[in-house]
């Protein structure tokens, strides 16, 4: 029970910081909306809905990247991470707290972006909505670990997209498949499998990444 309490406290801390500073979420919102407008001009007028569905996933992945790049910045600027690592709690709780907080930001950004997508381009099916949630979980789980890794490096903003994009390819495949394929459930299965495997892997390996 204390584990869950730690996680909740850490996630709440991130949300509170965001509520006061308002750094990340407005940026993500603005970014995803401008991306959708760019897509409108990038797609010739006679391309079908399928192309728009494909680009939606590009927008989602890049928005997540934007949020993740900021994820560990407050910790690093004030040396909080060292304190957290020394704190008498399981280190994986730090990862889980960060993942939940980032997930909350991403879902909040999409609560605006997806209706906008429906308005501008094409309606989304229920399968596609489930796929969005599954992709969000996967990308936040892997991304918050990789962002912690990249934050220790010299070129941290540069490094994160390089590390994350190859790992995000199965997620994009699953998302696009769920949105446009008539049998989208198979792709949901792939996404769920990805989430399960990589969440466990990130959860188990986070400790190695942050300890000296």
């Amino acid at each position, binding site marked *: 029970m204390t584990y869950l309490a730690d996680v909740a406290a850490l996630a709440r801390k991130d949300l509170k910081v965001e509520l006061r500073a308002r750094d990340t979420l407005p940026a993500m919102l603005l970014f995803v909306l401008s991306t959708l407008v760019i897509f409108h001009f990038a797609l010739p007028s006679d391309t079908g809905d399928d192309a728009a569905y494909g680009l939606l996933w590009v927008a989602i992945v890049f928005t997540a990247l934007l949020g993740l790049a900021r994820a560990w910045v407050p910790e690093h600027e004030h040396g909080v991470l060292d304190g957290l690592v020394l704190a008498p709690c399981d280190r994986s709780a730090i990862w889980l707290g960060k993942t939940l907080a980032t997930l909350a930001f991403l879902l909040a950004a999409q609560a605006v972006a997806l209706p906008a997508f429906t308005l501008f381009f094409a309606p989304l099916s229920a399968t596609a909505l489930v796929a969005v949630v599954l992709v969000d979980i996967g990308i936040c789980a*892997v991304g918050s*670990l*990789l962002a912690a*890794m*990249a934050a*220790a*490096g*010299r*070129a941290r903003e540069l*490094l994160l997209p*390089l*590390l994350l*994009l*190859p*790992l995000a*390819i*199965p997620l994009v*495949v*699953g998302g*696009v*498949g769920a949105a*446009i*394929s008539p049998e989208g459930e*198979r*792709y949901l299965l*792939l996404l769920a*499998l*990805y989430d399960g*495997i*990589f969440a466990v*892997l990130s959860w188990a*390996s986070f400790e*190695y*990444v942050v*300890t*000296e």
Partner: protein
Amino acid sequence: MGLAIVLSLFVAPEDADQGVSQRIFYIHVPIALTAYFCFGLGAWKALLLLWRGSERYDLESYVAIHQGTIFGSLTLITGAIWAKASWGVWWTWSSNQLVLFLVLFLFYCAYFMLRFSLEEGPRRARSSAVYALFGVVLIPVSFLAIRLAEDFIHPTVFTREGPQMTATMFAAFCVTWAAVTLLAYVLYRVELVGKRLDADLRELREALR
């Protein structure tokens, strides 16, 4: 060892009489399998590093992945040549194996970026080890994803008859495979020795200063 490699590389293709383009199969497939093997070895050493915490696994894991990336790029090149010869294009997205290799190639290039951007030390060793483990998990997951992706990117699935191998062809294939694996192993040892010498030298220099 060198003799075995030379023999297999020059003698084995003689056995093939399926046209020139088919001969690259003897080079391409063993190289690809060896690259997978190197990535697997790198991940295994990475796991050992995380488990036992011994510094030497870091170098071994790095060298194995380095070799894997070299063989991976060779696979991409030979694959492109083969595709040009038999399908008439340098690149085709319908070949699952090639796409998978491209994904892996990008992934392991990112691995090197990660390594070169972190400060040397146990933390870098562990971060790279974790990333190497991610890579080996990514292989089956992306393979599955690419398989699935095929039916919306290419509605008509590109079918290709699997090479029906005769005994001699199979023997040639096995010899090249063994030779390439041996080559990879030798390169792995050589690079490892070189890198260790380098590290020792640096330590000595520090000590003398």
